[in-house]
Every structure is written in C-alpha cells, then in structure tokens.
C-alpha cells in the first residue's frame, strides 16, 4: 500500500500568488484613478466615484451566479463533483459581491436619490430577492449529511435562482417607470474618457479578484472533501485492523 500524499499546508500556487499580487496592485491603481484621475460629475459631484466599485460588483455578481447555475446544471446532468464544487465556490463569492452591490448602491443612493432604499425600485428589490435566494442556497449546502443529496438540492436551487437573473438584469428596461436606476452608463456613451477607463480598470481588478477567490475557495472545498473521504477510509482501516487482532487473539 502506498503512503498517502502529504497534506498541502496552503491552497496557494505560483499562479494564485501572481493573481493575488495583481489584485493588490490593481486595487491601489483603482483607488488612485478613482479619487485623483477620474473627474467628478456635474450633478453628482464626488458621489459618482462609487460607480468604480458598484458596477464591477454588480457585473461579477451576475458572473458568479451564472457560474453557479452552470455548475448546478452540470451536476444534475453529469454528477460532476468538480462542477458542484465550482458552483458552491462561485455562490459564496457571488453572495459577497451581491451584498457589496447593495451596500454601495445604498451609500450611493443617499446623496443622489436622497434615500438609502426605495421599495418601489424593481432592480433593488429583485437584487435583494436574488441575494436572499443565494443565502438559502448556501444554507442548503451547509446542511451536511449525504453529499450527493446535498449537491442535488443545492443544484436545483442554483437553477431556480438563475431564473431571476435576467429579470434583475433587464428590470431597468422592462419597468422604466418603476426604478430610480438609469439605463446602462457603459453603453450609452455619455461617460468621460477617464471615468470609462477607471470603470474598465475596476472590472479587470474585480475579475482578477473573482478568479483568485474562486480558485482558493474551490481548493479549500475540494481538500475538505478529500479529508472527509480519507478520514472515513482511515476509520474503516482501523476497524478492520481491530477485527483482525481480535480474530488472532481468539
């Protein structure tokens, strides 16, 4: 019997370290660009700088939950543990980004809309529903018990939550009269060059952070699973060894 491979002391690798360094450098660049290079808005003044965090958070919320939905479908179709692990990791990061989107939106809303929250705004409300559904998804993943059953339960919720994604994304266009949100600033061509450039930098930094955290969460979840399996194997071997010893004694 070959000896089990030594447990890794961390989940980092050369690639993730480079990614991590790029994220730190990117955040520093984003702060400098956002506060010093990008101009203030004629109407919103400095409050407009919230766009450099809010828009990337919102976009990567979608990307994270779409990843969860794809992972969920792949689990349901192929019973792929790899995809199930990706789905779970992406959901955790998506919940973080979604919370950040709502938080930055509220802080931004106070000076521009004169309110932190508006129940009549369909995008706010649908985003909150999405966040609550994905918190439910994570609750189901943390229930424990049979791993296949847990993965199947989570996958169904992952697909169910994906249904609401296009509603959140298109709500501003579908319910024009029921939202304080404006239509996409990125596509209407009204942004200053430096503002647009800083938003793109923000998107790149958020993308790198998403990749970095997804890889680490994937590896942690995968190693936890390996540990559970190896612990079970070890316990079985010990019981069998005890059985052999008792046979020898008798």
């Amino acid at each position, binding site marked *: 019997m070959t000896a089990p491979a030594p447990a890794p002391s961390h989940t980092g690798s050369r690639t993730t370290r480079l990614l991590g360094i790029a994220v730190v450098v990117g955040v520093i660049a984003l702060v400098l660009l956002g506060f010093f290079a990008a101009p203030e808005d004629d109407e919103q003044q400095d409050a407009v700088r919230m766009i450099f965090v809010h828009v990337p958070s919102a976009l990567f919320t979608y990307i994270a939950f779409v990843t969860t939905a794809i992972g969920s479908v792949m689990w*349901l179709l192929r019973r792929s543990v790899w995809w199930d692990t990706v789905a779970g990791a992406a959901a955790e990061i998506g919940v973080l980004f979604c919370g950040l989107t709502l938080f930055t939106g509220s802080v931004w809303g106070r000076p521009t809309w004169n309110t932190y929250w508006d129940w009549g705004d369909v995008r706010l*409300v649908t985003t909150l*529903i999405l966040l*609550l*559904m994905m*918190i*439910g998804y994570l*609750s*189901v993943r943390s*229930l424990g*018990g*049979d791993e*296949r*059953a847990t993965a*199947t*339960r989570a996958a*169904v*919720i992952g*697909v*169910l939550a994906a*249904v*609401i994604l296009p*509603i959140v994304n298109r709500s501003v266009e579908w319910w024009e009269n029921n939202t304080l949100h404006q239509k996409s600033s990125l596509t209407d061509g009204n942004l200053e060059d430096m503002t647009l450039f800083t938003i793109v930098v923000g998107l790149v930094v958020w993308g790198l952070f998403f990749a970095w955290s997804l890889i680490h969460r994937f590896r942690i979840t995968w190693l936890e699973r390996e540990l559970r399996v190896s612990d079970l194997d070890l316990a079985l071997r010990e019981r069998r060894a005890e059985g052999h010893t008792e046979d020898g004694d008798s």
Partner: protein
Amino acid sequence: MFADALLVAAKDLRIEWRSRVTASQVVPFAFLVLVLFGFALDANRPVLDAATGGLFWIAVLFVAIVAVQRSTAIETTDGARRALLLAGVEPAAVFLGKTAAVALQLLVVEAVMVGGIVVLYDASIESIGLLAATCVVATVGIAAAGTLLGALVAGVRARETVLPILLLPVLAPVLIGATRAFDDALGTVAVDGWAWLGLLAGFGAINIVLGALAYGVLLEET
C-alpha cells in the same frame, strides 16, 4: 401522466379530508394571522385599508408554508416516497398531483380569508373577476414552488426551518405581483392589476416546468 396526477391529488386531498387538518388547524391559523394584523394596525385605520392586499398575501404565504410542510410530511412518513417510486408513477405526475392538492387547499383557505378581510378590514371588492383570477394564478405558482422546495428539503433534519428560508424569497415575486393585483381589485391603489397577473402567470409556468423536470431527481436522490 395527468391521470396519475389526478390520482395523487385525490390521494392527498382524501388524506386531508380524513385528517381535517386544513379545516381544524390551517384555516384557524390563517384567520388568526388576519386578526393579529388587525390588532397591530387597527389604531391607524387608513394604514390597514391601504395594506389589506399585502397583509392578505403575507398571511397566504404563512399558510402556504404550513400546507407545504403537511404535503411533504405525507410522503416522508412510512417511506411513502419510495412506495410512490416503486409504484411506477412518473415523478412529474406526482409533482403535478401534489401541486394541485396544495393549490386546492390554499384556494379554500383564501376563500375564507377574503371573507375575513371584507368583515374584519372592511375591504370592498371592486373587481371580483380580477380578485378570483389573482387568487387562482398566484396560488398555482405558490403551490408549484412550494411542492418543489418541499421535496427538496424532505430528507433534511431541520426542514421546518430550512423550508421558509428557501420558499419565502422564491415567493417574493408572487407577493409583489399578487398584492398589486389585489390593490386594483380592492380599489385601494390605481394600478393595472391585469398586467401584474401576467407576471404571476409567468412565475407559475416557470415553477411548474422546473418542478416537473427536477422532481424526479429530488425524489430519487434526496
């Protein structure tokens, strides 16, 4: 498949009829929730008048949780889920049957509750057609989502607490759409209730399709 669905629905309704749980526990519970809302808001009558539609549907969501838990419990006790699978009934038929049974029970409770808001909240019904259509369409969506998620948590030890966490956010669009439609039907707010009915119908259709597709996997693996 629809014949099997009818059989499953009849089975669930027969069990409910014999146990009288809906009549003796769920209806009084719904009535109690309406009374409690009345206690909380009666001091401010205009608020109670304006909030009647929302309070009605919040009460329906609470009742739906109880009804779904009952419906799920029927299949989890004594290994009835396995028996259904062994009987060769299509999972989609089981899903449709159980959805129909839950929907019918909820509609009975809602009929009583409409009487409740007329008597207790002094609500006046401006459009009985819109009110009835909203009840039917919204309830089908609630029952479909509830039956799907009920099966999802059936094998979980903490299912009583997990079900509301999962079900209430999923049903939030129903709460919004049905409340707006009721506002129109009760004449409390000037909105186009029939337009909101379209949203409710879309929600119901999505949940029925997803439920019919996913129910088999959940029955076999959870």
